[in-house]
Every structure is written in C-alpha cells, then in structure tokens.
C-alpha cells in the first residue's frame, strides 16, 4: 500500500485528521493499511501489544473468552474510532481480543516504532496520549452506562 494512501487515511481519520502534517508523515512511515476478512483477529489477549489500529472501515468487536461461556462480545468499535491502548502502557500486552465482524480496513501503526518516536518527541507523545486518554474516557463512560443496564426490567436492574 502506498504511503500516499496511508497519509490520506490519516488525514481523514478523526483521531489524526487535525494532527500536524509533519507528524502525519512520521506516522505514515511506520504504518500499513490492512484489510481483515470477517472473523479475523486483529489482536489476541495475552500477546504482545505491538500495534495501534485506526479503524477506517468495517466493524470490530472487543471480546474475551470465558471458560464454559465461550467468547463474549463486550463492545464494538466503528469506523473513525481506534482499537488498542495497551501498546502505550507497560507491559505492552493485550488484555482482550479484537475481531473483525465485517470486512475491516485499518491503518495499523507499528507500536514499537511509535513508542520509540514518542520517547524522542515529547510534543508528539503528549498529543497522542491526550487523544488516547479521551478515547479511554469515552470507552469507560460507555462501559459504565452499559453496566447500569438501563433497559432491564425494574426487578432485574442492578442497584
């Protein structure tokens, strides 16, 4: 995939669209544009968190395998959102699975290269981490609302 296509994807993606152009060029050097067929795993619990995914198209489920219950889908991530923040935090290990539910295209950033660059460029690190914090906060809020079980019958709602 050409660097121009990756750059264009970075310009369009809500996570990076208003990032300085020079930084987009830096990210494009460490990125690939990849398409995953339905049911393909983007990442797997316990493995090294070696990538950061900017979802361009498709739909991704965050899942966890639970013995005797099978694979449980917890949330989905849509185009314009990102998958994965374990790459930014030691020990850089995925805590959940992420699976494409439909054919999914993502800009996949090499996490080791991104971490190395961020350790040299504090401004870039601050920019990315502040964006990532907003993503984490949004996901946490959504999870808390899910936990409220708002649509449950009154007698089955958690207190």
């Amino acid at each position, binding site marked *: 995939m050409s660097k121009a296509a990756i750059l264009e994807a970075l310009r369009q993606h809500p996570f990076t669209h208003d990032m300085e152009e020079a930084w987009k060029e830096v990210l494009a050097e460490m990125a690939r544009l990849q398409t995953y067929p339905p049911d393909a795993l983007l990442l797997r619990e316990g493995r090294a968190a070696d990538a950061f995914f900017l979802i361009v198209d498709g739909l991704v489920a965050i899942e966890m395998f639970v013995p005797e219950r099978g694979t449980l889908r917890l949330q989905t991530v*849509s185009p314009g959102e990102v998958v994965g923040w374990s790459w930014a935090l030691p020990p850089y290990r995925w805590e959940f699975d992420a699976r494409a539910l439909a054919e999914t295209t993502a800009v996949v950033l090499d996490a080791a290269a991104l971490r190395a660059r961020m350790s040299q460029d504090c401004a870039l690190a601050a920019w990315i981490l502040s964006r990532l914090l907003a993503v984490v906060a949004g996901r946490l809020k959504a999870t808390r609302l899910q936990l409220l079980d708002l*649509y449950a019958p009154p007698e089955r709602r958690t207190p």
Partner: protein
Amino acid sequence: MIPSPIYTYPWAPTLERFLPAPYPVTGIRRETGDTVTLRLRPPEGRPPAFQPGQFNMLYLFGIGEVPISISGVHPRSGDLEHTVRAVGSVTRALARLRKGDVVGVRGPFGRGWPLEEAKGHDILILAGGIGLAPLRPALQHILAHRSEYEQVVLLYGARTPADLLYPAELERWRGRLDLQVLVTVDRGDEAWRGHIGVVTTLLPLAERLMDLRRAFILMCGPEVMMRVAARELEDRKVPPERIFLSLERNMKCAVGFCGHCQFGPVFICRDGPVFPLGRVRPLLEVREL
C-alpha cells in the same frame, strides 16, 4: 436564532377528556418477552386522530389506568397501536389481554414531536429500549411524507437482540435507501454481528451521515440515556432548541389538574411529554425532582 416553540393548550379540558371510551382489542403482537403491541379499535365516529408522540390513558376496568404512548396506526384497519411493557399491575394485565377484550381509552393527550417545524431539515431519531414506541409514529409520518424532510437517521439501542422492538419493521426500514438505521445492543450474543454498546456510541457514525448542528433531534429512552445523549449532542454544537425529548412521570388525570406528573413548573401530561431540551434541561439536573 431559532424561535422558541409557542405553548398553547391544544384542547380544552372538557368532561369528555375524563370519560374512557370502550375500545375492543383487535390484535395482540408479542414484541419481546415482556412487551406486547395492542391493536385497539376506536368506537364508531371517533377517528383515531393523534399527533405522533401523544399518549392515551388505557383503563382496565377494576384494575387501573396507565398512560401509554400511541405507537402507531395499523396500516390496514386504521386501529390504534399501543406498545406496552409489563412492569406493573396494570401493564401486566394489559399484556395478558386477548382479542375481543375491551380497554377504556381516554385521549390523546399531550404535546407530540415537532414534525411541522422539522420540515426541510435533517432528522436524527434516537431511541433506547421501549423508547422506540413513541418515536415509531413519528418515523412512520416522516416516511409517509419523505420528500418534506432531508436526511433521516434512526439510532436505536436495546438490551439484547431479543429485546429489539418491531424486528420486522426494523428490517424493512434498514432496506430503505432514504433512511439510515443503526442498531446497537448492550449485550450481544453469538449470532449478533452488529454494534454492541450504548446508543450514544453511535453518535459519531450519525455525525458522518448528517450535519447534526442543523438537524432536529427526537429522542426517547431512559432518562439517564437522554441526559447523556443531550450533553453529547450539545458538545457537538446542536442547539438545545432542536433537541426534543419525551419524558415520563406518574401521569394520572392527563390534563394537568392532579399534579402527579408535575416536574418543576411543568406538567408532563399537559406541557409534554415531548419537550425541547432548552425548556427542561435545568430540571433534568435537579435530583429527586
């Protein structure tokens, strides 16, 4: 500047408003494990005129009376439809009715969705759980007058795939080229290949389909969901005058006399149940109101 809606009494509170009329049940459709849609036939000479978003008081003789939104008109018979979730003694009894049983009906009451004001604009319908019921006639009206509106998007959240209301109609709506339907559930199952998460997580997708700042927003669902959604919409620069929500309180008389549904300075039954956010936002932030 968007002018504030003018509030007037849509009808005089005549005695007729207090007298239930007998409506026979002409059909019952089970929607989910605890929710049914009742089809009720108006007596001769009483056409079922109503505004989408209004409600009727349904009375079961000897049991009690409850406010239930009008969820549509049966396309062939013209009978009124009411979608009822069995959560209390009256609604449980309503959900057990059979064809031929008779329900007392008063109404319609209250203020509906601003479908006239919204003409020529994009419409975002945001529904959670049973909240789709009062929005269904609004969407049916919009689809019947489709050329009068611009982009139309439905965001609908339910607890599980089995809790989705009107599944056949949802499929038909999904098949239309002039309507975008995005559905999410809080808990998926193995067969579910769609979105999982609260309905507000679909807002960024809606934002890709329309300019929310110029859209009319119609929403109904649990009050917490509407409070969070309203905040997120205002963060996206949607004017509060264009965000409309349907509120629910303990309505009894339905004509603004008894005070059971008083919500600060307004009565939900008379001044609502549909309100522009700008009118009720301060009240939504008052706890125990």
